[in-house]
């Protein structure tokens, strides 16, 4: 099984150097070969399992409580402006 590392890296928002690409291609292909063993298992008519303790659709009362202050919420921000998180422009001109 071959994996297109650059394509997957793009989907995952990671930047990969050409050396990394080669290394990861080998390593990830090995793991994919291993997990490919699951094809041996007959899963016709088998339901999928996403939770194992029987809890589904758990909700709680939506009661407003004390939350982080604006200052606290921003305390780990790499860049801020006028009390807001600052991010890079999405459009070219900005």
């Amino acid at each position, binding site marked *: 099984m071959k994996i297109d*590392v650059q394509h997957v890296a793009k*989907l995952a928002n990671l930047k990969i150097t050409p050396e990394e690409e080669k290394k990861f291609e080998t390593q990830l292909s090995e*793991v994919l070969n291993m997990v490919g063993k*699951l094809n041996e298992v007959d*899963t016709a008519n088998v339901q999928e*399992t996403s939770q*194992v303790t029987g809890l589904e659709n758990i909700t709680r009362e939506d009661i407003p409580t004390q939350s982080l202050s604006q200052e606290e919420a921003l305390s780990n921000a790499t860049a801020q402006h006028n009390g807001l998180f600052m991010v890079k422009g999405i459009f070219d001109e900005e």
Partner: protein
Amino acid sequence: MELQNLTITTTLEKLKNKEISAVELTNTYLANIEKYDTQLNAFITVCRNEALEQAESVDKKISDGISLPLLGIPIALKDIFVTKNIKTTAASKVLEKYIPQYEGTVVEKLKDAGAIILGKTNLDAWAHGSSGENSDFGPTHNPYDTNYVPGGSSSGSPTAVASQMALMATGTDTGGSIRLPASFTNTVGLKPTYGRVSRYGVIAMASSLDSIGHFTRTVEDSAVVLSTTAGKDQFDGTTPTVPVPDYQSTLKNGVKGLKIGVPKEYFGEGLDPTIHEIIQNALSFYEKNGAEIVDISLPHTQYAIEVYYIIQTAEVSSNLARYTGIRYGNDRQEFGDEAKRRIMLGTYVLSAGYYDAYYKKALQVRTLLKKDFDEAFKKVDVMLTPASPSLPFKIGERIDDPLQMYLSDVLTVHANLVGIPGLVFPGGFVGDLPVGIQLLGKHFDEATLYKTAYAFEQENPFWKTEPKLLKNIL
């Protein structure tokens, strides 16, 4: 102060009787960290001032006659538990400067119970790893032989407990990250039932598998801690309303009539014969004490590691997507190789065209794995297995071969996929290297694990065997 045979229960007694003060105790543990940790690298952050402040307030509480389940007990937290105003890194450069604005539920519960936090322990970055070597802040060393790994991903926590740098330390177990290191370090490690302990405020790895547990020196100590940490939490929807029993009160119930299952698939070719012998000795012990040993089969076991590396990486890729370097943390470029590998694998198995072949298939086989256990637990009360097919390995031995490293978890991932509790406790030594025994139980039946392990520990107190390092330095 002599710490050699101290446990949580005996320390509580000494504090209560004023044989020792919390400040004295805390200073002794801080001194041990100073003495041993240059060689072990178990801690990322030591909270000396905060710990001593807490200790002073504990001494005041004790003299006021206040009693709490962990009052004055010096503990450490895996550095993946967020702590308000204390740096929390997940051992990754992405979070090297992250100072959380809130406290996780378990940390709050431990503090409310009177525990004193000495520091934050090392781990494989983001809890990705089985050896402790994958930390951006350097590997942790096994205190029983510093050339060896302590196991991972919770590497610093059991190392701290085994080396008397803390009486208890927290861990997380997504595929064996508590049980494997417990086995490698002669400590007691509990992976509770999925949802038994709140995940709120623990940096997420794989959300359908993450279990929040702890390391202690003895089985009784583990029970005391679980009585504090377990329970419903409104901030984690996976915590059920199942009542939390007093785990300490049923410890001594014995194993007479207990049905112990031995799944044959856990004793395959790859199992080290010296480990097999230790497991056999334990089984003989239980038989002699009135338990019934039952041969069982979990036919899909051979697929557990494959299912795990699909589901886990899928969930990792989703959970780590939030690290964009905007609200907190550094840029995604700071992710190490292992995180990148898992993010990419997970992204791949979830991507269009591959979803059905990998992810959906894994969720279906997960159903079959669960059925195996449901069937087996109709015949037995608990299962006994090795925790690892091999002894602790040398630092550097598996680091360049991710696949080989992934296979370290072959006997532990199963429990996470089906959500059952697992307890690893000291089973003996091969030379200087510790070997743990794994018990697997029914959902929410940690009490049976505890009474089973307790019976063995009473006659085989391996926890008292100190690491070589401590003897050499003292």
